[in-house]
């Protein structure tokens, strides 16, 4: 998602970077590029205007403090980044658990936003953390919504409270009310209430969801919104805010190529944080929403933090601990580690999604979406054809060893060469990253995976260069204005 926005913004910054010295008219030109990009991305007009004004003012204020030779484009970039994070909701917020269980979460939103699927994802997310959620079928309106929730519940292994058949039969308020009593006797610690989709302008149905709210007194009301939504997002969000009210926002269908301006608009105009995002058809395609990560993604910096977390989930504890230890000792990341990771990776499936989170991913969107998964197998076969010594220390790889490996893997010598080159580059980045102070070990360890993977697979050149950019971003700038911008971020 946000791909087009990020590629447009990246374009604006590239042209800015190509200038030696930035003048105020460059800033105006960049601002007008950003304005068009944001409008194209469905950000509400009022939000766009406010955003542009803030960027312009801050950029102009920063200009005189910059000495020539400093990376002025980078400073402006940081200003935009900071501003984006601020709009997207600053630091994210987690669900508030009730003092006396069950914690009640109620979902509300337009038709087709993805509430029912989301209910299942949310239930799985919390069940995996050791909670005991109960799904409640209070959408008695859409034909077979109840059945859908039951199917979803079954596939995530979460019970569904559905005393009414739906299809217009039954009272959703009663169902919600009964579910609380049921949850209390059966000791479920969380209740997730799915409600029917409704339009913001439908006062009758808005009253119905208010009635449900008054009965279940939810700890969290989540407004579920389609990331593809246009300018109406603002009107609809306002209507729900004034009607049933909500505490947080969930963005769905983020795996599309929508630019997701709705997210920016809703966060800005309702002041409610985006708490979760949902990005795929599988019930595990769901995560907490991180504003700073999304801002990085909009700006084309990649989403390495999410990647690190996904990687952590995918790798078994022992291997992860081993790798962490290795890192702590200051040992190098070797091809043997790389192979282990490749194996864990191939168990995970959707390589293209993981690659999509890499820095610079927007530029190779097409390649990533159509990533040839068998590339992993081919890469694995090359590493597997190496001796343990070669895996530990690729420096020993002379011509004859490379020829032997190519023969063993059924690949060309060039393939071996290119893998080794990219791996060496990745290894170098990892060393730099480790030197970068203040990075949590888990993140460094997680980043090792994408850095290695990104460089070694798929034959693209972005891994090394962009990785360096990232490493650079982590270090504090010597320039006061720049550092201030960083610290603020």
């Amino acid at each position: 998602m946000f791909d087009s926005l990020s590629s447009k913004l990246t374009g604006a910054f590239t042209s800015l970077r190509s200038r030696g010295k930035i003048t105020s008219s460059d800033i105006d030109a960049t601002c007008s590029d950003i304005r068009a990009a944001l409008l194209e991305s469905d950000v509400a007009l009022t939000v766009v205007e406010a955003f542009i004004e803030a960027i312009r003012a801050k950029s102009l204020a920063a200009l005189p403090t910059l000495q020539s030779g400093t990376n002025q484009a980078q400073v402006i970039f940081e200003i935009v980044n900071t501003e984006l994070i601020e709009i997207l909701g600053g630091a994210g917020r987690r669900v508030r658990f009730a003092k006396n269980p069950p914690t009640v979460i109620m979902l509300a939103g337009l038709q087709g936003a993805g509430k029912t699927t989301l209910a299942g994802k949310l239930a799985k997310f919390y069940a995996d953390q050791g909670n005991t959620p109960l799904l409640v079928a209070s959408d008695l309106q859409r034909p077979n919504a109840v059945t859908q929730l039951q199917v979803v519940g079954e596939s995530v292994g979460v019970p569904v409270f559905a005393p009414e058949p739906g299809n217009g039969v039954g009272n959703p308020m009663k169902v919600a009310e009964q579910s609380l009593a049921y949850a209390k006797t059966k000791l479920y610690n969380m209740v997730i209430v799915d409600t029917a989709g409704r339009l913001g302008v439908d006062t009758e149905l808005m009253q119905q969801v208010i009635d449900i709210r008054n009965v279940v007194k939810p700890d969290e009301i989540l407004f579920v919104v389609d990331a593809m939504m246009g300018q109406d997002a603002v009107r609809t969000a306002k209507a729900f805010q004034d009607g049933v009210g909500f505490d947080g926002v969930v963005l769905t269908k983020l795996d599309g190529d929508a630019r997701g301006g709705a997210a920016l608009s809703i966060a800005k105009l309702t002041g409610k944080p985006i708490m979760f995002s949902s990005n795929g058809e599988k019930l595990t395609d769901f995560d907490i929403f991180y504003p700073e990560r999304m801002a990085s993604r909009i700006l084309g910096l990649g989403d390495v933090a999410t990647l690190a977390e996904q990687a952590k989930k995918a790798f078994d504890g022992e291997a992860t601990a081993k790798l962490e230890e290795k890192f702590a000792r200051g040992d190098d990341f070797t091809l043997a580690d790389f192979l282990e990771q490749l194996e864990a990776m191939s168990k995970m499936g959707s390589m293209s999604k993981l690659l999509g989170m890499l820095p610079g991913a927007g530029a190779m969107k097409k390649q990533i979406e159509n990533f040839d998964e068998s590339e992993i197998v081919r890469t694995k076969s090359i590493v597997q054809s190496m001796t343990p010594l070669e895996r530990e220390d690729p420096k020993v790889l002379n011509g004859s060893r490379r020829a032997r490996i190519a023969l063993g893997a059924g690949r060309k010598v060039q393939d071996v060469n290119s893998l080794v080159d990219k791996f060496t580059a990745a290894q170098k980045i990892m060393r730099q990253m480790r030197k970068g102070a203040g990075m949590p070990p888990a993140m460094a360890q997680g980043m090792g995976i994408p850095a290695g993977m990104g460089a070694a697979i798929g034959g693209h050149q972005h891994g090394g260069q962009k990785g360096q950019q990232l490493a650079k971003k982590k270090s504090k700038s010597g320039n006061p204005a720049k550092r201030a911008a960083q610290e603020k971020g």
Partner: protein
Amino acid sequence: MGIFSQFVAKIKGQSTADPQDWQELEAELLGADLGPTLTFEIIRSAKSIKGDDAIASLTQILNSHLSAKPRDLIMSNDVTVVMVVGVNGTGKTTSVAKLAAYLKSSGNSVVLAAADTFRAAAVDQLQTWGKRVGVDVIAGKEGAEPASVAFDAATRTKELNSDYLIIDTAGRLHNKSDLMAELEKVKRVVEKTLAVSEVLLVIDATTGQNGIAQAKIFAEAVEVTGLIITKLDGSARGGVALAIESALDIPIKFIGTGEGDTDFALFEPSSYLSGLISD
């Protein structure tokens, strides 16, 4: 209230609009999801209009952005096959049911094919609708190959010699090339038995500029012949549909305006335009 009404009222009796009016018009058009490209185009061509012939000029300008293709369903001599496609949650299944009710009410025999075998309970949802509007639904099992369900449906409808076969397909995001390939296959396989006369893309009126990307990629994959705009009973104006017509020359054929099976109508460009401009 139409998106141009305020503008028209303001410049009435004036020789031209002042900068403030243009800015307000721009905000209005952008707010209706026409998108920056179409908005700037319309404003550029509107710059020359005079206050008193504003309505006629605007109608003409907007008309030039509408598709000239026919808006009635293209009929086949054999069974007329209509495929309904779109991204997730736009209202495909509901639209299929409404279209069936619409065609049935004018005396046609209609068969529905439940080729959304992916989403949980989508087949049940269509069957419930089938019972409600009184048409037969041909379904496979959940998780069945959608192309095989569609093929069976085509074969059986041909035998029955019904007037229409409407195929409901699973929602898919247009950037998933494997799912788009699956959709192409559904069409290909149906065409072994019956020609597909119409591929209708369902666009949610709340959709923003992403709708253009949706239409473009669906059209590349399965030659979309028309649009169904849904959820027009909400506060969304559905301006992206206009942007799609303008950019891709795909006509809007139907609009959905509610959850009942009769909340559905043919798209009437002239009344639509007068609604935008003068109401």
